[in-house]
């Protein structure tokens, strides 16, 4: 009996070529692509540094951001006690920079959660049920799209109370339309696929189909869109607190810039450093978002 001929060896280099062939789950595969993306890893590292600074910085530094610690308009790098200088009231800029990210990032994350929840719910119902449900929800989405989002958020915060909860709610209410459109398209596409039909034939109800069958497969693009919304929500929070429309008792980067607005020519440092922090945070989040986009949609990698 002849022994079967050995299978031809795979060409060198092909063995470890794609992670998919190595039998990885889609999530691990995405992580592999993400990890190879230098810009995305840089964003992740930057984000890590910023978060560590926000979490441990204020306690380590020990000076409260609203306290008046030195003469107003102390220039940066001149007095070792107030290393980044003081603002027009004599408050320590470094103390504000360290703690000011907490409100900005927490509000950004919470508002993005609200926005994504509204968006996914509206989009899922419109895409899954179609018909008049779709028409009604699409018109609703259009209504929220024509309202200039910052102005609408300003109106909401002004008419109700300017607390952090209200700011979160206001940003969430104005930022969900993009996610809704995306979720609608995904649900429309996935509900027609065979695996969904099969689940329906086995007796799964609409709720189960939407949550257990369709949603998991719609996740990758939704996660990318959620990351982008976090970046936008952080910029939103900064804008609202710059205008003085956030909680006046919570220090934030936008508020530091806003409260020193009248004195920018006398103390550039009090507006420059918090601005650098907002910029770095949004940049880090969008680099991570771009990395996730490439990782989840390898076909679009060239973009």
């Amino acid at each position, binding site marked *: 009996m002849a022994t079967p001929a050995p299978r031809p060896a795979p060409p060198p280099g092909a063995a470890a070529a794609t992670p998919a062939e190595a039998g990885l789950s889609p999530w691990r595969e995405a992580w592999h692509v993400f990890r190879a993306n230098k810009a995305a890893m840089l964003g992740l590292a930057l984000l890590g540094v910023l978060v560590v600074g926000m979490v441990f910085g204020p306690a380590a530094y020990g000076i409260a951001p609203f306290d008046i610690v030195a003469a107003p308009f102390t220039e940066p790098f001149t007095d070792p006690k107030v290393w980044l200088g003081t603002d027009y009231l004599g408050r320590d800029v470094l103390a504000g920079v360290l703690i000011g990210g907490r409100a900005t990032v927490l509000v950004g994350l919470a508002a993005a959660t609200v926005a994504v929840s509204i968006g996914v719910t509206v989009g899922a119902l419109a895409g899954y049920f179609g018909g008049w449900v779709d028409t009604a929800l699409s018109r609703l989405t259009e209504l929220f799209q024509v309202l200039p*989002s910052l102005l609408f958020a300003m109106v909401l915060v002004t*008419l109700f109370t300017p607390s952090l909860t209200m700011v979160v709610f206001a940003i969430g209410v104005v930022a969900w339309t993009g996610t809704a459109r995306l979720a609608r398209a995904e649900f429309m596409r996935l509900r027609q696929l065979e695996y969904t039909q099969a689940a329906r034939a086995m007796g799964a109800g609409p709720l189960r189909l939407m949550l257990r069958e369709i949603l998991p497969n719609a996740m990758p693009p939704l996660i990318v869109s959620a990351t982008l919304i976090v970046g936008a929500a952080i910029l939103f929070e900064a804008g609202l607190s710059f205008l003085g429309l956030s909680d006046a008792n919570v220090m934030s980067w936008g508020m530091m810039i806003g409260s020193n607005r009248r004195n920018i020519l006398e103390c550039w440092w009090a507006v420059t450093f918090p601005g650098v922090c907002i910029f770095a945070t949004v940049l880090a989040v*969008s680099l991570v978002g771009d990395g996730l986009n490439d990782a989840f949609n390898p076909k679009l990698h060239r973009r």
Partner: protein
Amino acid sequence: MLKTVGAVLRRLALAFGLVLAVLALNFTLIHAAPGDPAQVIAGEMGGADEAAMASIRKAYGLDRPLPEQFFTYIGRSLQGDLGQSYLYNKPVSELILDRLGPTILLVLTALLGAIVLGTLLGVLASRRPDSIFSGAVTVFSLIGYAMPVFWTGILLVILFGKVWPIMPIAGMRDVRMMGAGALANALDVLHHLVLPAVTLGLIYLAQYSRLARASMLEVLGSDYIRTARAKGLGDGAVTFKHALRNALIPIVTIAGLQFGNLISGAVLVETVFSWPGLGTLALDAILGRDYPTLLGVLTFSALLVIVANLLTDLSYRWIDPRLRGR
């Protein structure tokens, strides 16, 4: 032709429906806000005594049943009556029309500059996607997106207010120009426009260059471009005549969709540069608790966005002949 007219009429009807929905939302907001609607309309200026409140209730029909109030409100608004500002003691519509010009000037300058320059940068970057220039466009678009617009403005104010004072950093006109001629005045406004328009335009420049690059790369990979090249057409003709026309479609779409964001950005930019537009009007209205003016600005900006969306929709039909019948 008839089909096109029908499509346009349908779009107009939908746009009108949206206007009604915006008004209905405003009405809901006034009544959902904590406190008496008359108080909301009078603003919390403290100056409104019982007699003034009674006259507001009567003028707005607030003593009437809710559905009747609703229809009165919609009817008045559709006739252009957006109420009375108690802060400026003027009709809101008059205040808005005064401030409309500066905002439109700012927004359109920024938008057109960003589209033209951004498309150009994107097209140039797409011709050699791996070059340093192309990489620079990508980095620039990331930076432009992440800069908070009010901060960019402030940095420019510091630069041109302190370091290199060749540009005015606040307002729209120089008071010393009062007696000068029309041309000198126009030039003065343009001079004041430079920094606000650059600030607002930069974010969109960043986005359009990225979008144009991606869109061009996609189009340049398609079969009809290969055909055009095979016919022996030059690089310039292929890029600008064949590819760009198709690549423009997503750019125009985004430009239309972003008009609302542009107005939001203008609110911040106007605040930084004390530009006398709708944004500063809205902020002053907030600080003065002048709710009719604030809601009027919201309504009117929504109207601007609806008009911009309509124009975008029509310009599609012009760019893309395949859509003309729909």
